[in-house]
């Protein structure tokens, strides 16, 4: 493989990392509060509110059921408004964030719902406010499970970022398609795929390790 190709691989690796890290952070920023609201507004939870819960639920489901490639194209005007351009690596972060946020919201919701109602009741019996219950009970108790959920989201985002080539976003997936598939360079295809597999393995390993460390349920 030529030096030129290796440089291209390294550049693509950083593009993928940039897109995945940035969109994970932004999607978490939106998804975590959304997941908390989806949880606490349920009937029988600490701030029941059927209206808020069902409206958010519908929005989250709608976003999640739109295929990523369509979502990406559909929100081009929004992307242009936010980053000034609809093409490029940074531009790809917008659709990635928007598709990952509802995913993270659901992941957070299911983690928070795992917490035994008795623990919440105990906090209420001590006079904890809903906000204190969220910060001091729900999030710390679910943290190990949230970490696993976010790991899942990061891995999904690595997959989605391959499609970012449509917006000229670059990245490893794009490289694999343009060089490996369209230019018949199977070696490039194989190397990119191997790098992607390694990334996923490492991220899953880190997520599992961190979650295990945070989980005090089984010692």
């Amino acid at each position: 493989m030529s030096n030129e190709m290796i440089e291209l691989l390294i550049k693509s690796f950083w593009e993928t990392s940039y897109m995945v890290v940035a969109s994970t952070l932004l999607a978490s920023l939106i998804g975590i509060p959304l997941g908390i609201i989806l949880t606490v507004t349920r009937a029988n939870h600490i701030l029941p509110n059927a209206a808020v819960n069902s409206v958010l639920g519908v929005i989250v489901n709608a976003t999640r059921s739109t295929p990523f490639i369509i979502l990406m194209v559909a929100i081009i005007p929004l992307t242009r408004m936010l980053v000034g351009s609809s093409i490029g690596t940074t531009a790809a972060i917008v659709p990635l964030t928007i598709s990952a946020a509802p995913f993270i919201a659901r992941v957070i919701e299911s983690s928070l719902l795992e917490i035994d109602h008795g623990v919440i009741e105990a906090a209420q019996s001590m006079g904890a406010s809903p906000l204190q219950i969220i910060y001091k009970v729900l999030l710390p108790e679910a943290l190990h499970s949230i970490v696993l959920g976010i790991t899942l989201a990061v891995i999904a985002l690595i997959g989605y970022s391959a499609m970012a080539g449509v917006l000229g976003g670059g990245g490893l997936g794009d490289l694999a398609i343009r060089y490996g598939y369209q230019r018949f360079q199977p070696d490039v295809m194989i190397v990119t795929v191997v790098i992607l597999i390694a990334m996923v393995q490492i991220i899953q390993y880190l997520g599992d390790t961190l979650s295990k460390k945070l989980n005090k349920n089984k010692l």
Partner: protein
Amino acid sequence: MIELRNVEKTYHTASGDIHALKRTSLTIEQGEIFGIIGLSGAGKSTLIRCINMLEQPTAGQVFVDGEELTAMTETQLRKARQNIGMIFQHFNLLASRTVYDNIAFPLEIQGLSKDEIKKRVEPLLDLVQLRERADHYPSQLSGGQKQRVGIARALASNPKVLLCDEATSALDPQTTKSILNLLRDINQRLNLTIVMITHQMEVVKEICDRVAVIEEGSIIEEGNMVEVFTNPQSPTTKDFVKSVNKLELPEAFKDTPVQDKYFEGSSMVVRLSFFGGNADKPVVSGMIRECGVDANILSGNLDQLKDRIYGNLLIVIEGSKDALENAEAYLRAQNLQVEVLGYVK
């Protein structure tokens, strides 16, 4: 200390209303240990949750320490709850916090500084004898230790009332005993009012001053524990008492028909119950001498009701019809409880 006035709780469900708690009034005095006993589904869980308003009563008023909880705003109620500790059947500890941090939790909620928290938590660790376990997580503790953490956590904010929701139901008999001893100890030491719901008569008999029996959302019997225990009125209460007072006819009699009325040549089976005070009088030998009967002891036991000795004796009395009547009259004249179980041959 605690007063429930005409409290009701109704759940509206798709399949109709469920009256978990029917119009109930109850007064619990400062410093007493009050037991509420009932089968599962009787409404005892709802009742105890109405005291700290974890369940909002549908009607009626709740007063704790002179303040009406049912008239408070959410914020006032949160403040008031800091005066009412609660422990649970499944402990409900925070799995992600150590023993120390679990006990510190209610104090953190109140916004106390780290130093103030340390000052409160340290003595509590000693009280519940978990000092060496301060850095352990709940999953590393036994059930009894978890409940002791729960008790320390409930006491952290210096409450005036402690609510116990089936606090010993998940524990083995020996651990139950040690937890009950701890509760009795803090009741006396801190003059803490304790309300406990349970389905175990052993618990009530061990530490309660007064007891209420609840069935289908209503209190069917209430009073001094010793009185309720020795003289139960309702069938449910009798069943509860029987569950710990296992003095029944011995196996040998199971096959012989026991008649309610005297018949020719039969002997009388009698259960005598007595309290510490008259346990030393030779009642049985007195009866044999005075009434010209013979007596045979089938079984007997000594039990403890809170701090009083309570004894039971099952005897068979042999003699003529008249002599048996005399013997029964003689026994009834003594300071003990007499129950004629029947006549056998």
